[in-house]
């Protein structure tokens, strides 16, 4: 067992992941630090998204998958028998690549998580909705039209709404799967600024295809290749002085 010092949020040990017979991840071990942004980079199909989705067990809904090894959150293996997946996903929130607001009002989108977790007090819900929208830097743009459909928002606003929705249930970790890949540069910049703000309160793990983005927003970077964790270090080090030849080839654009 690793010694969970208080700045480590999440630990994986020899974590492997299988789609049927195909091994998508091989023996991943890493320590993710609290209140930092950790970026996962690597070419398409390298397993970075699979690994991200393993951290809140979203892969459970894909039939025929299985895992080996451990993912420890607060010292508890999230794949353990007694773990309540519902509770895990409240603690480990997720923002998807394609923003997926529900076809409800802006307010109801953010309130959704609170309500399914049994919050019935309308003023408590309203207060938390406002806090979450403020935290996602969206409040000023939507405060006058909370009852309007979330689908009328722009792409960037929709993605920030999804972030607000994830924040509303007070997660400890927020997983982001290429959250800006479908957005224009301006909307992307807003999301990146937001991530920078969010790490004060949350631990952020972000998958990105965009290496400049990883360099801009993250504190630590993990490079995945063919299902293996090739290198994991401080972002500065990865981008200026990587240990592995493969990492250097990738970040200098020689493949991928």
């Amino acid at each position, binding site marked *: 067992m690793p010694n969970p010092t208080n700045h480590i949020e999440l630990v994986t040990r020899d974590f492997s992941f299988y789609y049927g017979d195909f091994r998508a991840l091989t023996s991943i071990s890493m320590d993710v630090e609290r209140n930092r942004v950790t970026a996962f980079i690597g070419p398409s199909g390298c397993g970075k998204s699979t690994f991200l989705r393993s951290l809140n067990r979203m892969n459970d809904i894909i039939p025929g998958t299985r895992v080996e090894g451990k993912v420890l959150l607060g010292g508890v293996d999230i794949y353990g028998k007694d773990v309540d997946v519902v509770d895990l996903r409240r603690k480990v929130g997720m923002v*998807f690549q394609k923003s997926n607001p*529900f076809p409800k009002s802006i307010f109801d989108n953010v309130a959704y*998580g609170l309500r399914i977790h049994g919050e019935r007090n309308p003023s408590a819900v309203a207060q938390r909705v406002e806090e979450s929208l403020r935290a996602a830097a969206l409040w000023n743009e939507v405060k006058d039209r909370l009852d309007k459909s979330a*689908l*009328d928002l722009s792409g960037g606003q929709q993605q920030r709404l999804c972030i607000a929705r994830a924040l509303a249930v007070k997660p400890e970790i927020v997983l982001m799967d290429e959250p800006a890949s479908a957005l224009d540069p301006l909307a992307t910049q807003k999301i990146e600024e937001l991530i920078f703000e969010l790490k004060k309160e949350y631990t952020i793990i972000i998958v990105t295809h965009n290496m400049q983005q990883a360099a801009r927003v993250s504190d630590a970077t993990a490079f995945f290749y063919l299902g293996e964790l090739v290198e994991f270090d401080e972002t500065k080090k990865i981008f200026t002085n990587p240990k592995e030849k493969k990492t250097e080839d990738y970040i200098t654009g020689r493949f991928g």
Partner: protein
Amino acid sequence: MSARTRKWQEKLGFGILIAATAFVILVLIVILHDIFSKGAGVLSWEFITSKPRKGMTEGGIWPAIVGTFWVSLVTVVFTVPAGLFAAIYLNEYAAQNRLVRVIRLAIRNLSGVPSIVYGLFGFTLFIMILRINLSVLAGGLTLGLLTLPWTITASEEALKTVPMSYREGALALGATKWQTIRTNVLPYAVPGMLTGTILGLARAAGETAPILFTGAAFFWPLLPSFPKVLTSQFMALPYHLFIMATQHHAIVKVRPIAYGTAAVLIGLILIMNAAAVYIRYRFRKKYKRL
């Protein structure tokens, strides 16, 4: 191939498609025209709202309309929950393995079983084995069995149109599977399910064979009120039409009544189908931005 040949082929292909469509529409127009023109003489408010008189050679078809209403109601009450829950299980819960694929195929096949087979099955099950009287209940349940495959299939298709991202989004917030389905899948699938159910019901309402052995009566002008109506025999539009067209002792004399009955039955089914189309239209309009 020269440009001219291709252009010619294009025109020919188009022509065949248009001709086929025109043929279908023509057949429909001929049938409707035949029925409504020959039934026009008897069609009136009185025809719809009065009982048959003088050995069914005069009067209206009100009891048959009411009978069709009650038997359809039993069909809905049975088929909607059963079909809905089966579809939710098949689409949301069941592992997508060979067994489930076989079950799904069996359900699709059931929708192709001739209605007379349902009629005889309903007779055996409800009348002979379960000892229910010939009644609205037995007839409605038999029609329910007939529509069940349609309801399940339509409901499953409706569930499939709800984007996976709604399910993932809710699950990722810590919703349980049932919470996800109830709050973030079903509300968006209900209109599609409703459309399919209405279409299935419209088909059932026009069926004769399933009610032939399970409760439809030649002449039963007085239906009791609810709940006694459930255990009573009944008249129904399609069966009434069958009698008037082929079994009546004064068959030539009652021919206009048969046409009038057919017109009312078609009118009812038209209204039901229009309702289904309207619901689908409203739904598309509401979610077209997705």
